[in-house]
């Protein structure tokens, strides 16, 4: 067997590959150990989360100076905030004195950040403003060098902000590669090019390895089995979810799985399940038809027929390597997730919509969101159940060593969304970065 990736990076015993691809034999296997090993999780932290661009938040979450959100990025507690001058910052939420978090609320508007342990106070740009009893410090104590530590790099693309803990990392713009086009397709739904995170966050744990959610987010092969009840709901609502007769397809339309470079990947599917911008289905009700037609007309006027059709008539589930997913399906959801143990992840999910939406349009978007997505939706809970079942199965990783991801490898033309070509994109990148850091 030709082994594309055997090297010292592959585990405790040299030559023990985690991802094995053989293009001639058309096989692609991932060793199940990568989902259960604490050692691999620690190496992922260094090789991926400490070196890749990690999504931290959206401009719309920080409307005014002083606005802040506390969250986690790449395993660090951070404050994502807008300072007095209006500059967006990402500061590590840890007092320079003895370590306590200096902002403990989820979100709000602050004048400064105050450490409740000894009372050190920081300005919104991170600079240290006040130290109680400052005269007891030796002359070498330099307040100007004791501000909150910013994430080493903070850059944005179309209001999506990312941090990088590797000072030497390539620019975000370069890193995103082909993913930019797919972010554009989302943002172009807004006439002004301004999308906003809608209030109400969904934060839930899945008792499964984080990489399983990467796979699941773009794996359209699982739809029929895992989401049988959602498909049934669509059918009951008058939506045609059947594959065209004789097409050989599993789903109602022929979608693709695409490699966007640098480990990013997406599905790109002709829509059959409705889109608030802008494809009417019966679930929305007759009275929504004219409104959706109007949204469509605005798109065509602004973007032209072809581009409007790209924006309005396709569903795209995008993975920005390693852990940001933007699903532009029955609604737009932005979600990222972090491992907390090999068999557990924290998921955070938001809804995203054009700032111009009317109340009725916004209500329709949120209704459509909950039809499929989220911990109370008709689909996501079954994804969670599936990933947890997978993780349970991995307890036998020593006996059943490999996952098979060869689906579609014999296909001569483009990989379908129900193939695994785009999943293989993730795993190749994962393997390369793990190797580079070894």
């Amino acid at each position, binding site marked *: 067997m030709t082994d594309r990736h055997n090297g010292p990076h592959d585990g405790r015993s040299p030559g023990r590959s985690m991802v094995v691809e053989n293009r001639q034999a058309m096989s692609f296997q991932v060793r199940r150990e990568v989902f259960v090993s604490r050692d691999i999780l620690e190496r992922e932290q260094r090789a991926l989360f400490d070196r890749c661009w990690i999504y931290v938040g959206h401009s719309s979450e920080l409307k005014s100076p002083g606005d802040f959100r506390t969250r986690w990025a790449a395993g660090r507690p951070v404050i994502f905030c807008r300072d007095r001058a209006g500059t967006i910052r990402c500061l590590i939420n840890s007092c320079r004195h003895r370590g306590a978090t200096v902002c403990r609320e989820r979100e709000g508007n602050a004048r400064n950040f105050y450490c409740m342990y000894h009372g050190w106070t920081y300005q919104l740009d991170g600079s240290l403003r006040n130290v109680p009893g400052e005269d007891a410090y030796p002359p070498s104590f330099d307040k100007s060098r004791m501000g909150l530590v910013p994430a080493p790099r903070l850059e944005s693309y179309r209001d999506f902000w990312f941090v990088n803990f590797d000072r030497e990392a390539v620019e975000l713009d370069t890193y995103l590669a082909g993913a930019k086009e797919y972010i554009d397709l989302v943002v172009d739904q807004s006439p002004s090019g301004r999308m906003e995170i*809608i209030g*109400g966050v969904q934060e*839930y744990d*899945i008792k499964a390895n984080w990489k399983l959610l990467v796979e699941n987010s773009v794996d359209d092969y699982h739809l029929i089995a895992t989401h049988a009840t959602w498909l049934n709901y669509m059918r009951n609502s008058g939506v045609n979810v059947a594959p065209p007769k004789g097409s050989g397809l599993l789903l109602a339309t022929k979608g693709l799985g695409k490699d966007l470079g640098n480990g990013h990947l997406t599905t790109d599917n002709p829509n059959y399940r409705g889109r608030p911008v802008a494809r009417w289905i019966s679930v929305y009700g007759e009275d929504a038809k004219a409104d959706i037609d109007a949204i469509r007309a605005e798109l065509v006027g602004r973007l032209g027929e072809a581009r409007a059709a790209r924006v309005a008539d396709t569903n795209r589930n995008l993975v920005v390597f390693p852990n940001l997913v933007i699903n532009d399906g029955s609604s737009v959801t932005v979600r990222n997730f972090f491992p907390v143990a090999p068999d557990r992840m924290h998921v955070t999910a938001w809804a995203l919509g054009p700032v111009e939406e009317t109340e009725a349009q916004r209500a329709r978007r*949120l209704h459509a969101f*909950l039809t499929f997505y989220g911990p109370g939706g008709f689909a996501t*809970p079954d994804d969670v159940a599936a990933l947890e079942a997978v993780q349970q199965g991995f307890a036998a990783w020593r006996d059943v060593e490999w996952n098979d991801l060869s689906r579609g490898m014999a296909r001569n033309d483009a990989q379908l969304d129900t193939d695994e070509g785009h999943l293989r994109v993730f795993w190749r990148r994962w393997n390369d970065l793990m190797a580079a850091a070894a």
Partner: protein
Amino acid sequence: MNTPVANAVSRAEVEDLLYHEAELLDGWKLDAWMALLTEDAAYYVPPNDKPDADHRFTLFTIADDIVRLRERVIRLKDPNCHAEYPPSRTRRLITNVRVVGTEGDAILVAANFSIHRYRRGGTHQEFVGRYRYRLRRVGGVLKIAERRAILDAEELGALGSVSFIL
């Protein structure tokens, strides 16, 4: 609370309804449960970070109108509802029941809940929060026009999904 609508209901009658509902939900008798609802009933679970928000402007965990609620019951009865197959064992303890006011012909009720959910493999979760009900008399029978289950947890976290009816 000295309105005719509120006077026409006793806390005991409200408690009977809520306890009966709890028994039906814990017993997965979902068709019988649907019969307790009005024809235009709604069911909400607000997001943990914005418990008092409005579902039209805020992303909820669940915001079902009666159409989607009927579909939710169809889903929950289907063995392909993987998140609830086999169905969870649940036990709901409902306390602090109060009739808190009226709005038109609706009776407003508040209660606290603690719902234990068990699944095979030692999984035990406790969903704690408060209910806000709007009840209406339909043909003399007290029915549920709206039920809102507001969780106290700061985030769903280890509660994972809300795949059964809270």
